[in-house]
């Protein structure tokens, strides 16, 4: 495996929900160390891409590959993919009454350990303290049930908390910015930026430029009708912000 490139590579990915094809041949490569923005009009496959990568059973892959450090993960169970270092920050995180955040985080960390190896208290608590500080969150939050009664902003912050605790290699942020006020947006961005470095790659899926003011992407890709129709630098996001999506929709028509 040592010769394999450290990157997330999506090759000719086709996926559908039921009989409805949504992804129609996505090609993307994100090396570790880079964060790429994925933009595009709503309903064109951005969130589907995120969910297919992490193995949501609602979606069926009909063609193509998703390679994590050279390994095709499409045959793997969702939990195997996660243990490989892939992390999705959900657009709509679920509420699970009865499971405390602390217990959940501990078990998720434990799942990454080799058999017989325990998550030590110091490891857990040290990480937790530092993550909570970054997110400006009081420790008492981890005694609460997972997302139960949380506001939209708190749920997103909780996604970033999990991200910080689990040290992924590849993150996929699915419209994490939607519904956040600017203060919450800054906190979320601070969390992500604190992880940036040569070991972290990922996709920032968003409809708006806003988040990208705080998390500046290395590249920007635009998805329309299940395909990447344009890629470029951060300036592409700014162009979308000022000119809207009409011109990229034309690109899709031209490409089809």
């Amino acid at each position, binding site marked *: 495996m040592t010769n394999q490139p450290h990157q997330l590579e999506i090759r000719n990915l086709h996926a559908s929900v039921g009989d409805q094809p949504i992804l129609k041949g996505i090609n993307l490569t994100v090396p570790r160390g880079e964060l790429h923005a994925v933009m595009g009009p709503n309903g064109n496959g951005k969130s589907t891409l995120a969910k297919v990568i*992490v*193995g*949501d*059973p609602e979606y069926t892959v009909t063609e193509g590959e998703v390679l994590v450090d050279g390994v095709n993960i499409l045959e793997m*169970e*969702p*939990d195997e*993919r*996660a*243990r490989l270092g892939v*992390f*999705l920050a*959900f657009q709509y*995180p*679920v509420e*699970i*009454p*009865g*499971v405390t955040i602390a*217990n*959940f985080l501990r*078990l*998720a960390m434990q*799942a*990454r350990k080799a058999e017989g190896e325990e998550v030590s208290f110091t490891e857990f608590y040290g990480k937790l303290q530092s993550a909570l500080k970054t997110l400006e969150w009081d420790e008492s939050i981890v005694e609460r*049930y997972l997302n139960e009664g949380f506001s939209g902003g708190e749920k997103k912050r909780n996604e970033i908390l*999990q991200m910080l605790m*689990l040290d992924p290699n590849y993150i996929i942020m699915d419209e994490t910015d939607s519904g956040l006020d600017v203060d919450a947006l800054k906190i979320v961005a601070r969390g992500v930026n604190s992880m940036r470095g040569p070991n972290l790659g990922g996709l920032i899926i968003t409809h708006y430029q806003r988040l990208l003011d705080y998390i500046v992407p290395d590249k920007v890709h635009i998805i329309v009708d299940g395909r990447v129709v344009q890629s470029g630098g951060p300036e592409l996001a700014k162009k979308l912000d000022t000119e809207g999506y009409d011109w990229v929709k034309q690109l899709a028509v031209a490409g089809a």
Partner: protein
Amino acid sequence: MTQPFTEELIAQVGGPDWLRNKRRESLDLFNTLEVPTEGVEAWKYTRVDVDFSELRPHGKRERVTDISALPASVQKRLTSTDVGAYLVLDGPDVVYATELPTELREKGVIFTDLKTAVEQHADKVQQYLYSVVPAEVPDDTTIAAPGTTPSKSPDPSEGKFSALAAALWTNGAFVYVPRGVEVELPLGSFRVMSEAGTYTATRTLVVAEENAQVTFIDEQDSEDLPGTYAIGAVELVIKDGARLRYVSIQNWGKGVTHIQRQRGDVGRDATLNSLVVTMGGTLSRTEMQSYLRGQGSDSEMLALYFANEDQHFDHYTLQHHAAPHAHSDLLYKGVNADQSVGVFSGMIKVDLGAQKTDAYQKHRTLMLSSEAQNYSVPQLEINANDVRCSHGSTTGPVNQEALFFLRSRGIHKELAEKMLVTAFLEDVLSRVPLQSVVKYIEGIIAQKVGAA
């Protein structure tokens, strides 16, 4: 029909004349009744296939003076309980007991076994014994408007096992809290059995006088005991303004059939909080009934159970609103794994005069196996016209979205499912402010979930 239970048994269990007479009447009733058949609505999904002539009473065990002489499981349990005083029963009788703290005794609180109470507190026992759970099935026929059809009366056979418990009870707990006295620490009874192929009949009586407050915890635990029957009656008297919290935790071993009627008579502005936990035994029928006699009375009825392998758990509940402005809120949550069977029959009854009744009933079941069965029968009988009543029942597998979420964090499927099952039941415990008992119940849940 054979009549294997004879007068001789009365002689063995004894008591003063009034009690012996009562026992005799009850035995006569028992001998005339059939075991409820499937034609009886309240027993439609549960068959008790018992040959009484094969049963003998559970042997009597010696009283011990030291905890170290108790069965290991009881010793273990006693190290982690925070009850203020307790009784330990092995089979028919008490084998160990602790005393109430002096200050409570000085305030007139009584906590002893029922047999002793019959001798030492005859007036109180005679006043209340059989008043809430008599030998026969309580007649909860609703009071309806003139000219309308009242509800169906219970079938006499529903009194078969309560008649047995009335006739042949050997012992149990007796709690009496005088007017206005609040007992902080819970009181408890730990029951074990240790002889297969036998029956045990027990009876518990708790009386909370006006504005009194007390918590009573009723635990049952044993090794596997094939062909063994535990028949019980629990009578809860909650006078005006009093508050009683009653918890029963059934964790018998395999082979035990558990049949217990638990009923509270709730006075004006009084509150009964009940929690029923069913984990053990092979066949379990636990009735929890709240008779809301007084205006403004309140009953919270919680339960959780986990049935696996061939376990059959039947929970029958009654929220009988006999007075206006009373409130009742029921939440029963259960898990059915393997080939287990779950039955829930929940009855809300509102009498003609019980205006402004506020009654809720929710039963939720988690099905972990396609071979498991669940019968959920919520029923409403409303005779007043200004009430709020709702009932609902849901059945399904673990939440797939939640399962995917946990797995997406790297947690293995099997563990993620167990977390969700535990969380499902935990939800009920979050409403019970009894730390040490909750911890004990969590331990039993973990064991069961782990084995599933």
